[in-house]
């Protein structure tokens, strides 16, 4: 809390926005903004959830355990952690899962996007646009919409359960592939529900596109994976709208992390310029729109979204378009599914540097491990999307507050919270770092 005393009745140009506990985000954070005489003097997205020490927990564990351990960082995007972890290890070992395994992983990742995006759209973010304090209140007058969202989310849950073993913290993923793979018939039993859900996703796009969006256009550096043919999930080079085009293995040469006093999550920046950047649905959409299915591109055009999107409040529509794409892609993958001959590719245990980035629902999730010749992890570095977006969120808020000083206090505070939720921040993901000081004086 700032010690600064603001004058009483100072007028609209001297304001304090103080949200001591952000709601409808995952984890524990707060927001503090001071404006004096129209000048922003303090702005802090405060993440006070304690560090969770996952990187330190990984030291000394087998490379085969990284997926299951890191999946516990997040209950809503565990598949993303598992995928980044196993693909990092496979890259190090020269292990190449079959095309059918690759497709099954893509299907599983689609299902996780569905779980995560639908929860955010219907239960966490839509209430902001429709003027409700929470989804419980919203459900009283928008019951059909909420029921639609919950049924769609269940379709995602069911797929994660079938492929991953359970809907939260799946247990069926391993280096090389899966422990067991589903029968084709078991997947095809979901086709009818998924077809309903794809249509419901189109309705979701129309529903969200009709919301009223606060005006905020920003010139972001968008960073996302880009694959040669596919909308990115598991694979691709790390690209930006400002010319970056690198393999994941070069991520740390271009992106750095800093500790700031008001957050227990590290802030990420572009190394060369020390500037913020944006990861997540808008970045994916703006860099990969050409790889969406024809159906999703046509749907986007009907709501005027066949363009780059630079208003972060419109991320809810882009999430809805990604939901449509995920259902469309899930249907295609199931219809074309062939049961893999082997559930996992083989490999020989070895050491080295293991690196991978995948597209978690909230954006690029980067993993890097140092593994010794016995297959034990010596060092782990995990950079989740929310920590990468922190500085961008603060910059959004600075511009938003500066542009909206005429708003009454309640509306300004509401708008600021809504702006934070544009990113669907997962604070619990972001607070896993640890700088460990050893007794020999080294750090790691």
């Amino acid at each position, binding site marked *: 809390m700032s010690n600064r005393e603001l004058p009483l009745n100072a007028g609209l140009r001297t304001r304090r926005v103080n949200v001591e506990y952000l709601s*409808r985000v995952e984890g524990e954070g707060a927001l503090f903004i001071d404006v004096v005489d129209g000048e922003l003097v303090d702005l802090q997205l405060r993440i006070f959830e304690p560090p969770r020490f996952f990187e330190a927990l990984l030291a000394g564990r087998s490379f085969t355990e990284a997926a299951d351990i890191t999946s516990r960082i997040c209950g*809503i995007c565990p598949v993303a952690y598992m995928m980044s972890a196993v693909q990092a290890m496979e890259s190090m070992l020269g292990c190449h899962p079959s095309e059918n395994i690759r497709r099954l992983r893509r299907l599983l990742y689609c299902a996780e996007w569905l779980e995560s995006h639908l*929860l955010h759209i219907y239960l966490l973010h839509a209430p902001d646009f429709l003027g409700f304090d929470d*989804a*419980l209140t919203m459900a009283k007058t928008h019951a059909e919409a909420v*029921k639609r969202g919950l049924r769609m989310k269940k379709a995602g*849950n069911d797929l994660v359960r079938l492929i991953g073993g359970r809907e939260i913290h799946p247990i069926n993923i391993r280096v090389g592939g899966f422990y067991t793979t589903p029968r084709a018939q078991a997947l095809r039993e979901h086709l009818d529900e998924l077809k309903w859900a794809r249509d419901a996703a189109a309705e979701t796009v129309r529903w969200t596109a009709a919301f009223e969006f606060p005006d905020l256009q920003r010139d972001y550096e968008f960073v996302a994976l880009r694959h040669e043919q596919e909308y990115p999930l598991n694979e691709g080079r790390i690209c930006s709208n400002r010319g970056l085009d690198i393999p994941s293995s070069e991520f740390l040469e271009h992106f750095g992390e800093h500790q700031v006093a008001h957050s227990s999550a590290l802030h990420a920046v572009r190394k060369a310029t020390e500037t913020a950047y944006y990861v997540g649905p808008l970045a994916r959409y703006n860099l990969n729109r050409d790889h969406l299915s024809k159906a999703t591109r046509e749907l986007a055009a009907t709501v005027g979204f066949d363009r780059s999107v630079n208003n972060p409040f419109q991320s809810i529509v882009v999430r809805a378009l990604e939901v449509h794409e995920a259902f469309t892609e899930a249907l295609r993958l199931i219809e074309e599914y062939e049961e893999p001959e082997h559930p996992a590719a083989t490999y020989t245990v070895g050491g080295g540097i293991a690196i991978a980035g995948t597209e978690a629902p909230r954006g690029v999730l980067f993993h890097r491990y140092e593994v010794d010749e016995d297959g034990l992890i010596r060092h782990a570095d995990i950079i989740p999307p929310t920590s990468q977006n922190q500085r961008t969120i603060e910059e959004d808020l600075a511009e938003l507050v500066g542009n909206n000083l005429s708003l009454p206090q309640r509306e300004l505070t509401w708008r600021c919270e809504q702006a934070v939720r544009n990113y669907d921040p997962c604070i*619990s993901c972001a607070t896993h770092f640890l700088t460990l000081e050893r007794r020999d004086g080294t750090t790691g």
Partner: protein
Amino acid sequence: MGPQAEIIALGNPWRRDDGVGPYLVRGLSEIISADRLHHVTGDLSDLFALFEKCHEVLLVDALDSATAKLKPGQVLRLTADDDRLAQCGSAASSHALTLPQTLALAKSLGCLPEHLEILAISGQDFGHGRELTPAVRRAADRLIGEIRRSEEATCPPRL
């Protein structure tokens, strides 16, 4: 609870007494058909789809004896708006609904079953493991017996 009630167990069978619901459902599987027995673990939002199809539901969950100030194995019979439901699981995440939140949302959505009874069984140990603690196991066995007798009184035994 009538003879056509659906029985929905909540809880994680790998976390000792949290698995009392699944234990109870397993114990009833010989006399109640599988399509009336359900187990929901993890994401409680899956309950909405079940509620849409059910007129009468018996929900079985564990609650923490320390928080509820109850003896292990004690059983509460609750309705959906009972304040004591708050002791059935805490909000570990804003990305997950608690049981009271789930029931409140179901009520807002108009999909709360017309007849809903919640059997909340006071658990003692929610650590890792498959075994129920003795008091909880005795309570669960007693409930299985009660439900079995009620079923047999209204339906002829399956041959």
